[in-house]
């Protein structure tokens, strides 16, 4: 892949991130999740698994802004983000019985489904993305650092942001391109002009560093 193509792809990455002033409702900073919100979500999801619609409504209010926000971040298209968010939230209702608390928290389970769906959608819409990419490429280039900044400023005032800052540049770039951009590790390697094995390793050791910084634990 030539340098020109990489620049085009990066320009596409920044498309949407540079769309100018956003409406206030999409700017609202996320409150740091209270410590007991995780426990509450676990309880709610267990109740949802028993068919409790009221519990689902409360769970919806707890997770929907992040499910929608994540879909929007990855897909960039509000209409598609809304569709994906709806699929994800109905999926949460449908498969709540499969949630296994021994494998992680309810919120992580929900956001894992949301991320997977958003990434699948962005990859299946590649024809559309190619169009958008070409469009974006004609509108000038964005330095790569800015793209990463755009991704990380969303994490403002949060523990996650502080921890992301402890990563090396390459760890941070690899993780944010994959997570927020929906790129495969092969694409990330191409985008960054870095060898595949290095990218694989940086994704893993970067996440391990984040895990330790955030104090994430899953019972063995």
């Amino acid at each position: 892949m030539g340098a020109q193509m990489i620049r085009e792809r990066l320009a596409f990455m920044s498309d949407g991130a540079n769309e100018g002033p956003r409406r206030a409702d999409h700017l609202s900073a996320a409150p740091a999740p209270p410590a007991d919100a995780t426990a509450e979500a676990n309880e709610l999801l267990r109740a949802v698994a028993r068919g409790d619609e009221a519990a689902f409504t409360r769970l919806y209010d707890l997770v929907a802004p992040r499910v929608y926000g994540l879909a929007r971040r990855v897909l960039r298209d509000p209409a598609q983000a809304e569709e994906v968010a709806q699929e994800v939230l109905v999926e949460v209702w449908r498969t709540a019985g499969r949630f296994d608390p021994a494998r992680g928290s309810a919120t992580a389970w929900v956001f894992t489904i949301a991320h997977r769906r958003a990434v699948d959608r962005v990859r299946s819409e590649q024809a559309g993305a190619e169009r958008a990419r070409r469009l974006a490429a004609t509108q000038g280039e964005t330095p790569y650092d800015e793209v990463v900044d755009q991704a990380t400023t969303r994490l403002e005032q949060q523990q996650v942001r502080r921890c992301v800052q402890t990563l090396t540049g390459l760890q941070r770039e690899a993780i944010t391109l994959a997570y927020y951009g929906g790129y495969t590790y092969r694409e990330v390697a191409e985008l960054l002009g870095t060898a595949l094995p290095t990218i694989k390793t940086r994704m893993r050791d970067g996440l391990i560093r984040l895990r330790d910084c955030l104090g994430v634990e899953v019972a063995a």
Partner: protein
Amino acid sequence: MSDVHALAGAYALHALSDIERAAFARHLAECESCAHEVAELRETAARLADGTWSVPPPRLRDNVLAEIRQTRQLPPAASERVARGAAPAAGGRRRRPLVVAAAAAVVLAAGAGTVSYVAQEQRVRDERATVAALRAESARVEAVLAASDARLHSAPVTGGGQITMVLSESLDGGVVMLSGARPPGAGRAYQLWAVSSGAPDSRGVLPSGEGGATRLIDRIRGMDTLGVTIEPSGGSAAPTEPLVASVPVES
């Protein structure tokens, strides 16, 4: 298997192709400590959603609540019922549901039309036909990926890209994925060949002009190598160009 293990981060970030994902899930099923590491990395990756807060349109809430009232919930034991239909796994009963669940996840995504691999290449106009084709294709892909003897092989393609395949000797079939290869040019296409002692035998032609696609192939028993050439669209009876990739099948 340390190379496979290094994919734990990419797996948790959903940064693998479907085939690699299925292959890694197989590895997970055989590796207790990896499963724990992946659970933690996935939990960590999910925290990256913390900063993506965005207020959804109010109609989303109404739509979701209306839809769940009409949506039947899956019972917790559903994964075991899926597992019953699968071929017995060599490693005993513990790993089977995991392997099947991973393959089923790939296939469920495909069935929902959200996975790109078949949808992109088929370009079938009639959506219903696409969905029907996807379901049939998915069932065969699932069978190959879930087979207890499924093996992953891959090789680089001359000029860029990668060819990856999962073969099952017992099912005499495989799933082949070409990714990131340069477009073969107008009126040209990548063609797959089973190479053994005799003449190369075609195993299918990828869509014209495409540098990435996924194909189910059959009759893989006895194949020494999967070869790839660039041929006129529609394919040739025998290779007319040098191989651009060759994936050895070591047993």
